[in-house]
């Protein structure tokens, strides 16, 4: 009986030790994924973002409850352009027919230069905003920025137009090297 109890005790100690070491070793849980892409980014758009967070009765009790209220202000960057892997060219003499896809949004990020301790505004009697609620507010602001950029048809059209200008310049440059004056015709992929 004593032996069994001793064995159980040892197993428990080993399990506790393993649990503790797992917690400390968590930073090793990293992995990377890689792949080829062909994103021709033609526009970089800067957005001014404000997230307004409010939650009632987040701390205290009965008549001494406090709310959480804060704002975060920063700039976000959205990059847009065309997927170059979808660009197709058909050449016939001096005529070049280029099929180009619609412009799309590639990246949306927080501009680190505009995001620091001065980006936060908190009410005097508010509960201290935790990391969790700050991340929620930022997520919402980033989502709003992405939606705004995706819905901006004018901006996407400009990004596509800029891609066309770049490609046309290439065709012109290559043509001048081999003594050809190419005429470009556009076909829009939907």
């Amino acid at each position, binding site marked *: 009986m004593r032996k069994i109890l001793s064995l159980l005790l040892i197993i428990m100690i080993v399990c506790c030790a393993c649990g503790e070491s797992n917690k400390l070793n*968590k*930073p090793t*849980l*990293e992995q*990377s*994924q*890689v*792949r*080829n*892409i*062909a*994103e*021709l*980014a*033609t*526009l970089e*758009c*800067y*957005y*001014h*973002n*404000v997230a*307004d*967070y409010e*939650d*009632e*009765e987040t701390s205290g*009790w*009965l008549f001494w409850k406090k709310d959480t209220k804060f704002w975060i202000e920063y700039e976000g960057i959205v*990059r847009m352009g065309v997927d*170059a892997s979808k660009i197709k*060219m058909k*050449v016939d*003499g001096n005529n070049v027919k280029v099929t180009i896809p619609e412009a799309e949004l*590639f*990246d949306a*990020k*927080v501009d680190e230069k505009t995001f*620091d*301790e001065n980006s*936060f505004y908190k009410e005097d009697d508010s509960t*201290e*905003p935790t*990391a969790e609620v*700050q*991340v929620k*507010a*930022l*997520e*919402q*602001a980033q989502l*709003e920025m992405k939606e*705004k950029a995706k819905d901006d048809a004018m901006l996407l059209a400009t990004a596509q137009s*800029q891609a066309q200008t*770049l*490609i046309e310049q290439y065709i012109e*440059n*290559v043509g001048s*090297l*081999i003594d050809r004056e190419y005429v470009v015709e556009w076909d829009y992929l939907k």
Partner: protein
Amino acid sequence: MEDNKKAFEYDEEFENIEEEIEFESDEENESEETNAVNEDKAINIKINNGRRWPIFFLLIVVIVVIGFFGGNVYKNHKEEIKATSDLKKVIKISKLSSFKMVHNGIATKYDKDKEPLYHVRYDATVKAGIDASKIKLKVNRRKKVIDVRLPKIQILDSTVDVASQDYIFEDEDENDSDISSESYKLCLKDLGNEVTEEKELYKSARTNAKKIVRGLIEPLVEQDDYKVVVK
């Protein structure tokens, strides 16, 4: 003298009582019952007086517990997040990203004694490629070769997904009102260190950039029997 007198009075009273006991036997039982009930009440009152404080104390504890936990569990939860986003400026660029790396990392903030204060887990994307406006073209008409020189591979974009940030605090005091901006910079720094060590990223980005550029130029020069060499 006075003591003797008092003792005499007590004896007299005692005799009277004894007489009452002898001649009022029925009433005696009734009065004994009444006295017993009165004694019980007195004892109960004493006991109740003794128990009042623990009950009162318990009641306060219950109110505090309900007020604290009940107040938090059944709180009037009205979380509201409003976000606004306004376009400020647009810059024309010509960046060709040819390779993408998705990175899931953990950054740690340390104090002066190199003790960890908190860990932050994050998801990030790194894109490498070239500035397409810096591609140089040359022709060798005699050899019928188009020589294409690509600029140096650059990290064109490093994006840490702010919404992916998750924390483990070793020191809870660090969980303050501007933690997310500090941790965001920490993640970018950590990501930068990881990217610098990824030699494969630059190599693969260059290989794929060559393919993309070749694919855009070759159709234009094939009919004239030119070869495209991308370096």
